[in-house]
């Protein structure tokens, strides 16, 4: 049975970036849980989001859809969505759909903080 574990912490200068570490599979079963958590964060005003995708061992179109939704909402609010440590499957699924340029992708936290902070 699949489940998803989500941990959140603030990083970067003035704790301005919300780091969301996701572990497990993002499929049609687990995506609602992920979506709820992300909506909670966004509704609380967290618009600069970095997803640590190292632990996402699988993503389906349901997961892709949520990423698109999150991207829409944070950008509407002047924020950004970035990903770090994407797994091979994660990257391939996004690339297959032509979505690989949708958001910034980083190899590690330091690079991500520099990249995200450098945009603002």
């Amino acid at each position, binding site marked *: 049975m699949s489940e998803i574990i989500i941990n959140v912490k603030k990083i970067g200068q003035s704790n301005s970036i919300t780091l969301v570490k996701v572990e497990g*599979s993002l499929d049609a079963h687990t995506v609602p849980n992920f979506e709820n958590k992300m909506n909670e964060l966004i509704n609380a005003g967290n618009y600069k989001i970095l997803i640590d995708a190292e632990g996402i061992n699988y993503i389906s*179109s349901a997961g892709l859809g949520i990423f698109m939704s999150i991207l829409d909402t944070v950008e509407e609010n002047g924020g950004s969505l970035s990903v770090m440590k994407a797994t091979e*499957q994660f990257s391939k*699924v996004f690339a297959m759909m032509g979505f690989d340029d949708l958001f910034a992708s980083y190899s590690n936290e330091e690079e991500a903080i520099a990249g995200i902070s450098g945009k603002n």
Partner: protein
Amino acid sequence: MMTPNTAANNNEIIELELRIKSELQYLSTVRGFIKTVSELNKFSEETVMQITLVLDEAVANIIEHGYKLKNDEEIYIKIIVDLKKINIQITDFSEGFDISKFGNVNIKEHLKNRKNRGLGVYIIKKLMDKVEYERNSASGNRLTLTKFFNPKTAAKNSKIAQTLENA
């Protein structure tokens, strides 16, 4: 429940069956099934990734759109692997989800308009060489997906989303 059935006189054909309840929590079981199939056949990582994604999408669609999330129904999956191809047959007894009517997505427009649904069928049609759907209220609806190992064979046999209607 998983049933292995290796053809007695032909070691080059592997046939495996899986029966699951129509609950989204069993999508991980379906993905595990592909892992078992791939271990028996030594598929490439790319093939495993593609088949896993396609089967996950197809079963999710049946549960969500065919059975409308009713969780006390069943879905039967049969995978047959021979030297030339992988053939996946998914049978359900729902009202039916006619795959031929979906998935004709213009990805650039989809991206431009930031639509976040409707990609599952697109993925199935993009990754499989043959997609056939037969609706049959008596013996069950059957979605048959085929992937050829040789791209030349794939090109000759491509048939996307042919739908057969049977009373």
